[in-house]
């Protein structure tokens, strides 16, 4: 066992100091009848070499590396500059704990303060916290926060165009609490102002909408937000973290809480975890915020420095009155995003968003020129669009995968009955990484599959 320290000699020394003969004496606290009489039944230990050889065969292939990835639905195959890995793989960052001892954590604290600022610059929102688990929980935490703000616990109005997994999380979180989750059905891919008006009333704590929405369409967030506000409800927006490179930023719509899945900004896919929950809001709500906050302050000598702030909101002080139960958050991924944004800068983000958009439009134009294949909704989109084909999408996607191309997700996966013909619809997502050649190969392949 490679991490075992004490040599027989040292062990003896320690035994003597403690005053024991056998290690078992130390476990005498555990009632004998509760102690294990056998070894745990686990695979035999393996050396680093053997484990590596085994894992290279089991994990050496696959991922998005071999096939071309047009998969979307919340996380995307974006490029990550080498600088990001180089920095975040420094032990001083990734083997440190939450920065409880400020003097021994200024590196982490400053980096997270920079993260909060970068996210504020990205969203235009006043305050960002230091991360939540991922986009889905961020949405639910936002609803809890809205309840704390306006005291309305009866209703939440959420868009039928919300990511189906965000919706599931909402249902799981609020099922027990008797909160009514009111779906706002979409009209031709987006939520109409009328639908929103009808859904929101004086018992509604907040509306939950997504931009671009799960179907790829662009919502009238400003209009919907105004409706929410007139009803005294808050507006919670889940936005695509890359979109501010091309589209309006959340603050420009006047929303109260803006959350996002931060993965596209420097985090590898890792089969969907760990991810990064971006959470921002207006200044006046800061004390109602979930999650950790880093603040700038001065030390005894008056020197600028950084420390955890407003900890009174957190569970280890407020216990059951805390604004959230989150403790370990997504620190390292917040760092990744900090380094990522610092490296690519404003131009880089604009390029990233614009390239994804242009390539998405090119892909859509090629794909929709295939007989029988069409955009489900004939509306503008950002970098992801919903395609409808004559055949069930499950079949189509499987056939494409066999040709080395991954596309989706298909709505069948979520049984998204709120889209008619959902069995034949799937998403196609583009990033700056996809080349013209790959896009044209996709068009060729799809043509063969549906033709």
């Amino acid at each position, binding site marked *: 066992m490679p991490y075992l320290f004490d040599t027989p000699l040292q062990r003896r020394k320690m035994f003597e100091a403690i005053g024991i003969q056998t290690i078992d004496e130390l476990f005498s606290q555990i009632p004998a009848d509760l102690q*294990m009489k056998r070894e745990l039944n686990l695979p035999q230990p393996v050396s680093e070499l053997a484990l590596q050889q085994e894992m290279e065969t089991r994990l050496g292939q696959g991922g998005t590396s071999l096939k071309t990835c047009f998969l979307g639905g919340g996380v995307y195959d974006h490029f990550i500059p080498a600088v990001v890995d180089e920095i975040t793989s420094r032990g001083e960052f990734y083997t440190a704990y939450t920065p409880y001892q400020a003097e021994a954590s200024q590196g982490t604290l400053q980096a997270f303060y920079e993260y909060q600022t970068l996210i504020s610059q990205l969203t235009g929102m006043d305050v960002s916290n230091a991360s939540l688990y991922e986009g889905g929980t961020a949405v639910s935490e936002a609803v809890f926060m809205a309840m704390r703000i306006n005291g309305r616990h009866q209703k939440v109005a959420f868009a039928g165009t919300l990511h189906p997994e965000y919706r599931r999380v909402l249902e799981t979180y609020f099922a027990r609490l008797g909160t009514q989750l009111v779906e706002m059905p979409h009209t031709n891919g987006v939520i109409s102002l009328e639908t929103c008006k009808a859904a929101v009333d004086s018992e509604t704590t907040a509306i939950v909408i997504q931009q671009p929405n799960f179907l790829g369409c662009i919502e009238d967030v400003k209009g919907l937000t105004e409706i929410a506000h007139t009803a005294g409800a808050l507006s919670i927006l889940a936005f695509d973290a890359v979109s501010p490179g091309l589209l309006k930023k959340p603050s420009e719509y006047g929303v109260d809480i803006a959350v996002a899945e931060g993965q596209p900004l420097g985090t590898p896919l890792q089969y969907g975890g760990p991810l990064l929950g971006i959470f921002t809001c207006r200044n006046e709500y800061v004390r109602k915020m979930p999650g950790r906050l880093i603040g700038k302050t001065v030390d005894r000598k008056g020197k600028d420095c950084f420390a955890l702030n407003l900890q009174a909101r957190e569970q280890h002080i407020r216990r059951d009155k805390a604004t959230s139960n989150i403790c370990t958050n997504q620190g390292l991924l917040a760092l990744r995003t900090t380094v990522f944004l610092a490296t690519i800068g404003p131009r880089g983000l604009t390029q990233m968003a614009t390239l994804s958009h242009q390539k998405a439009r090119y892909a859509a134009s090629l794909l929709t020129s295939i007989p029988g294949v069409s955009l489900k909704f004939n509306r503008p989109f950002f970098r992801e669009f919903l395609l409808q084909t004559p055949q069930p999408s499950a079949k189509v996607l499987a056939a494409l995968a066999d040709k080395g191309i991954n596309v989706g997700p298909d709505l069948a996966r979520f049984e998204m009955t709120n889209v008619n013909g959902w069995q034949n619809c799937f998403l196609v997502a583009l990033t700056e990484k996809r080349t013209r050649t790959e896009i044209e190969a996709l068009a060729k392949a799809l043509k063969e599959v549906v033709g």
Partner: protein
Amino acid sequence: MRNQTATQLLFEMSQADRGTIVFPESDVPEVTSLPAIDSSFLASGPLPLPEIAEPDVVRHFVNLSTLNMSVDSHFYPLGSCTMKYNPKRHERLARLPQAATSHPYQPENQIQGLLSILFEMQGMLAEISGLPGVSLHPAAGAQGEFTALLTAAAYFKDKGENRTRVLFPSSAHGTNPASAALAGFECVQLAGGRDGFVDLNELKSQLDERAAVFMVTNPNTLGLFERDIAKISELLHSVGGLVYIDGANMNAILGKTRPGDFGGDMMHYNVHKTFTGPHGAGGPGSGPIAVRDFLAPFLPAPIVTHDAVKNWYSLSTPAKSIGQVRTFFGNVGILLRGYFYIRTLGGKGLREASENAVLNANYLLSQVKDFLEVPHGDRCMHEFVASAKKLKDQSGVTTMDIAKRLLDYGFHAPTVYFPLVVEEAMMMEPTETESLQTLDAFAAALRAICSEPPELVKGAPHSTAVCRPDEVNAARKPVLCWGAPNC
């Protein structure tokens, strides 16, 4: 050798018009045939992000990193956090293509290798806990607690019972009550006995048909094994309630005893503690839960199942699943590191790890008890709680002062002022991956500090970049964003 220019804020380093080009030119033709985004939805201009050249970005963060203490650089006996060594081999293996680049919506046939490993991991965690139903879904320990409580709630609902109360001792970690509240339960906190153990009579007095779950950390946050845990479990079961084991301290009992064997019905693991997932300066973690068979049908989705005939791995949803508590499968990146660790050690190795963790803790205890009060006895499990109360009464030197002074000696501080049940608490968890030399050096430093002139200790730290940030004023008018009007 500190580099002041490099540790300015990114925003102070920024220079407009760096003009760095990051991505290639577009290689696709403009498309006009499709509906274009209305200008009212387009960004008004480029974002106010900082513009810094790559070399300065690197120098900035490299210098920032050196302002941290970390397991890779320093002894980090932060109680309840299990700051053990994070094997480098795990980082290398986690970079393998299927592990690092799999998309959550990728077809199952492309990721059989990954799914098979996650399936094995479910089985290994079941074996280690003695609880057969495992979900790898929760993102961290706290979410594990929340998820398990929802699972229990669904179970009770299914039985037609309406149980409203979750109980826990006052030594419980803050996430226990917070998770219970989030899950819609009423929280009942037990004072607990002087000796640090759960007071059975007090517990009895609180148990009735409203009792849903009793949450207890075992070994508890004082580093003691709840000797009456079997009794506790009997009591709960006798009123139809369940016992939840907070697994944050599993590092003390791997292969020695199992929550399932000592009466627990549910538990969470902190893979980032017990199984070496790096803490990442505050995460990511992974908080899988393990439950008894009768609770398994209520576990969240998805879980990995194996068709032995077809030898095929796939995702499935338990019959009466509570649903999802997050998007996608779970924190796979961290789960894999935990898997690599368990594979490296095996059953015997895990037991030895716990034995050495307990040995190191008891040795450290034996080296400090003559000059630092240890209220709960001469024996502990993987950690113990000392108290600076005496010292404070005598010289005014507090636990916080000692913690800060330790930094000058090149050691990270223990967990301080937790658990709340001990005054001037100092919770020390050396872990098994520390050598005797390190433990001796740390004990010597503590001893020296306790006899240093109070003003020296109260002035600490003296060697760090900053000294005692003002948190009180900071909380009055929070400065949480550079350049914001309120900043």
